[in-house]
């Protein structure tokens, strides 16, 4: 087994295991279908690794600081992969200890790595219109 195949196999543990860093994630695709379980095992809830990091971004000379949630998902657990230009709802806990989920979407191009078997989404919060 190659190192890449080992890495793909380990994604379940390193990305999704809720005993480690995994947190629950629910996706609603543009067709209105909800994805809350793994594509490979429907008894296992969909999980991902969420980063709630702070960072500073320089924007045309202006500095902005904010929290920036990103979620990394195991491609092997998705029946449909979020693409750029699509409107998805991504529900994640607003903080690692929360038991409720907040609604996010994304505009930035998802980072899809077939080699590593992962997709990373840069999330924007949604508020009620």
């Amino acid at each position, binding site marked *: 087994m190659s190192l890449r195949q080992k890495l793909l196999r380990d994604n379940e543990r390193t990305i999704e295991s809720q005993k480690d860093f995994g947190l629950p994630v629910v996706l*609603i695709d543009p067709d209105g279908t909800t994805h809350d379980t793994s594509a490979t095992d429907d008894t296992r809830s969909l999980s991902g690794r969420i980063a709630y990091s702070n960072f500073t971004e320089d924007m*045309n000379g202006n500095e902005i600081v904010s929290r920036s949630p990103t979620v990394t998902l195991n491609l092997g657990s998705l029946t449909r992969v979020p693409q750029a230009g699509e409107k998805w709802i991504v529900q994640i806990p607003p903080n690692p200890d929360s038991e409720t989920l907040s609604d996010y*979407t994304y505009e930035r191009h998802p980072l899809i790595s077939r080699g590593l078997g992962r997709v990373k989404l840069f999330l924007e919060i*949604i*508020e009620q219109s």
Partner: protein
Amino acid sequence: MNFIDARKALVELLGDNAAGRFRVVGYKKQQQGADDVRDNNRTVQVYTRKGKLDYDSTSLNGPYKYGMTIVIEITASKAARADLTVIKDPTSSPAAVVAALDDLQNAAELARESAEECYDAVFGIIMDSRNKAFDDDDDTLVDRRMIDEFEISNPSHVGSLVAVTLFAKLTFDTEEEAGGDTPLNAETPAIRIEHEPFDITGEEQDETSETVVEGGSGNEV
């Protein structure tokens, strides 16, 4: 100098007329928190960019006419908007969810609209003829004020929000007088080296002396 008073008057003018539409913050370029400039908390920063002497309208001994450039920087951020009651309702039909997703408004579009809306308000205040001298009572502080240029940044995805910054260039003229300088520290007074006029007919003699200015204007001897 008058341009400092003019900038302060401008900040006050904008602050007095903001009416909850924006906040005027700081007098220098500074970091903004995306969460802090959300919705009507958009910020307007006013800071001096440059002053350029108008040679045609200035004499050697003053008053000195300066063409001032002040940057008005508007920062706004927005979240995406959607009908979450439909999306979160487990009884909603897939068609209803799809419709709600179609109506989802991207944060970038909303942030840009927010910055433009704020600029509309700021432009209206500054270019109101009643404020032609930044509401200065005797209308002498500034002349020929004009917002002659503005530029909007690309939307920036900042954390879970999207921010947009609009830079507007405000130009106006001020007249400055040189009032002389005052020594900063009386214990280290200003020193001026004086030379007697060179006498081409007499014997060469060193008349150089030091004059210590004890206080008051630096021009005093």
